């Protein structure tokens, strides 16, 4: 087991170093070491997936930071949750690597791209494999670094390097909270290792109530930053500046799910403090709805998919928030496949239109790009949650769980969001693939992507269909029983209400999805109520959505703006004027007094005589006053 894990972890690192530092010989063939490395890592992960037993395997390679009683090991914690995450990460990474060979062909930074991608896989695996929160944090930030490097990959484009910087800084804000969470854990439990912390919580849960609330909240702040939940989601839409395979891998399948994994990993902590769980769920629900509304009006394919990812992440947080950790991970697992597929398909569209992403300029691509179109359709159907496909099983389970545990408000929001999801996905499909081509010039140059890109698309399409079947039958499904060992029983958290979930519930969610598709169909294909007309009548509401609720502007104005102003004021005011002022001031005053005396010896002879006379006076006066006595 140790060998498999280390192999899975260090192979991509070796690939990254090979490409990055000694990459010259590989120049054109840079993808080979990268793909092989991730391939090895994938096989190792599958092997682990098969072999992981009931008891988590804890292995320590060496002690990383030994200070007094704060001993942080560099080690692995492998259980079924880790295995699932590794499986997802490595499989999607491998497909994205293969896809990138075609997509990034001819790009000057080809070698650098594969080095960063490998480094990302290494960091993500480190995050998943770590056996303590400190090492988790190392992976956490390393993943942030890789996303910074990959978003700003085409750094000559100012918007790209700005987006990279923005991503890193917003992530860092979340990480700051995460750090405080780690400190709280260490302060209360005297260790950051999973096994010790979980064991202490399990043995006497009610002892650490206060500290647990603080720790879980701080950790959640980190998750909000990393998984782009409200209010720290602003970096994800901008992250679309990076190459599309990157968006598919990092900003859909793997990195953004780190937050969900962390909450699932610390399920023992979260289930002790249900009120925090409810907060997590409500933030998730709100973000889901909030993002879905913005996705409805956006014209950029990748931005729509980005908002859709934020929305789906919201779903996952609803699940883990309400205690349904397995459901959350299940949705993460299925989402990775169909969202990865959608992004790669979008990439293939972009590849064909030479970087054009605006839906309004497209139309009728179905005939010219059958493979991309079909796979995109499958992905959209999966995402909207129609029965046979993966999305239905995972999303429906979350909705059912919300209903069953009596959170009707969250349930309603979830259902509404499902409607919107179906609507904006099929709006995208009808605008891009169906109807009349709106831009002849683009339509003329259209061509289907090479097999090296379409084959991964079909594999992911198959996965989007098949992945869900593993979870049929909720509690007793293969997937749930597999994760039982890691995430504990399904009913850990007894909610007050326990309403029976009838068949009606499933019918409702499917109906809602179909309604969404219908709406999109009539609006964008048949142009019954012409969307432009609707937009004008909606007026303020439409522009609000279009301008993404002006959130970016608000942040720039308040957070960035005020900080910059205070910095300037501080610099000129305090640094220059006050501190330097006093220093130079003392210098100046000394010089000034000097000049006064200098003028005093004016060279005017007779004034000297006068001063002598005055001096004599004072002298005698002084003698008089002091001499007095004797």
């Amino acid at each position: 087991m140790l060998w498999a894990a280390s192999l899975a972890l260090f192979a991509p690192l070796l690939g990254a170093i090979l490409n990055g530092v000694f990459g010259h010989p590989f120049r054109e063939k840079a993808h080979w070491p990268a793909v092989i490395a991730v391939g090895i890592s994938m096989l190792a992960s599958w092997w682990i997936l098969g072999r992981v037993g009931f008891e988590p395997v804890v292995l320590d390679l060496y002690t990383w930071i030994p200070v007094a009683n704060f001993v942080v090991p560099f080690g692995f914690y492998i259980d079924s949750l880790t295995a699932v995450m590794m499986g997802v990460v490595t499989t999607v990474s491998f497909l994205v690597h293969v896809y990138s060979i075609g997509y990034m062909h001819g790009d000057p930074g080809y070698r650098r791209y594969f080095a960063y991608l490998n480094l990302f896989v290494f960091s993500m695996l480190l995050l998943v494999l770590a056996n303590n929160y400190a090492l988790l944090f190392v992976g956490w930030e390393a993943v942030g670094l890789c996303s910074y490097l990959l978003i700003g990959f085409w750094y000559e484009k100012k918007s790209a390097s700005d987006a990279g910087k923005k991503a890193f800084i917003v992530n860092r804000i979340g990480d700051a909270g995460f750090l405080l969470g780690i400190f709280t854990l260490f302060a209360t439990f005297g260790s950051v290792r999973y096994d010790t912390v979980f064991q202490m919580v399990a043995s006497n849960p009610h002892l650490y109530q206060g500290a647990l609330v603080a720790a879980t909240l701080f950790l959640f702040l980190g998750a909000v930053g990393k998984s782009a939940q409200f209010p720290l989601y602003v970096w994800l839409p901008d992250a679309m500046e990076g190459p599309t395979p990157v968006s598919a891998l990092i900003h859909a399948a793997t990195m953004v799910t780190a937050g969900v994994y962390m909450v699932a990993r610390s399920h023992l902590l979260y289930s002790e403090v249900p009120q925090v769980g409810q907060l997590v769920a409500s933030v998730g629900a709100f973000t889901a709805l909030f993002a879905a509304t913005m996705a409805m009006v956006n014209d950029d394919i990748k931005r729509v998919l980005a908002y859709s990812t934020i929305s789906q992440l919201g779903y996952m947080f609803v699940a883990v928030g309400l205690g349904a950790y397995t459901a959350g991970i299940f949705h993460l697992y299925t989402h990775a496949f169909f969202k990865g597929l959608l992004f790669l398909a979008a990439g293939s569209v972009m590849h064909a239109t030479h970087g054009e992403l605006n839906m309004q300029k497209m139309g009728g691509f179905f005939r010219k790009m059958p493979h991309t179109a079909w796979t995109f359709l499958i992905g959209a159907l999966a995402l909207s949650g129609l029965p046979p496909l993966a999305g239905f099983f995972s999303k429906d389970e979350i909705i059912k769980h919300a209903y069953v545990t009596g959170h009707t408000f969250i349930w309603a929001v979830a259902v509404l969001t499902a409607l919107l999801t179906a609507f904006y996905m099929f709006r995208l499909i009808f605008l891009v693939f169906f109807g009349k081509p709106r831009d002849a010039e683009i339509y003329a140059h259209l061509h289907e992507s090479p097999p090296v890109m379409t084959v991964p698309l079909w594999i992911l399409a198959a996965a989007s269909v098949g992945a869900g079947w593993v979870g049929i039958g909720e509690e007793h499904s293969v997937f749930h029983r597999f994760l039982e060992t890691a995430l504990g029983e399904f009913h850990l958290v007894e909610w007050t209400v326990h309403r029976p979930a009838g068949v009606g519930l499933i019918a409702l969610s499917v109906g809602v999805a179909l309604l969404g598709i219908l709406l999109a169909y009539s609006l964008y294909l048949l142009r019954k109520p012409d969307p432009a007309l609707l937009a004008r009548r909606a007026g303020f509401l439409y522009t609000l959505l279009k301008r993404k609720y002006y959130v970016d502007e608000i942040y720039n104005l308040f957070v960035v703006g005020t900080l910059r102003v205070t910095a300037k004021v501080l610099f000129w005011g305090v640094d220059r004027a006050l501190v330097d002022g006093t220093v130079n001031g003392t210098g100046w005053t000394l010089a000034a007094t000097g000049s006064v005396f200098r003028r005093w010896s004016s060279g005017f002879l007779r004034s000297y005589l006068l001063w002598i006379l005055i001096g004599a006076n004072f002298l005698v006066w002084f003698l008089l006053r002091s001499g007095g006595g004797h």
Partner: protein
Amino acid sequence: MNPTLYLLLSLLLFGLGAAGVVLRRNTLFMLLNLELMMNAVGLALVAASLAGLLEGQLIVLMVLAVAAAEVAIGIGILVSMVRLKDSPLVDLWNREEP
């Protein structure tokens, strides 16, 4: 013949001499006043001798010698001043503001 009267007189003379030195621009009159002040001092010393201090008179002799030397140098300066700037006014010798 009590000494305070003498002292009073010497003080008066000294005051007048001092005022004169500062008031007058002509170097000659400054020197004259200077001499007057020296004499006032002599007078005070004599008053001291009236009060029983023999050395008083002795110091007067010393003061006298010093005054004489001082006049010699004073006239010397006056002569060279007049030769250089052919006017005894002191203000010609002020250093202008740098």
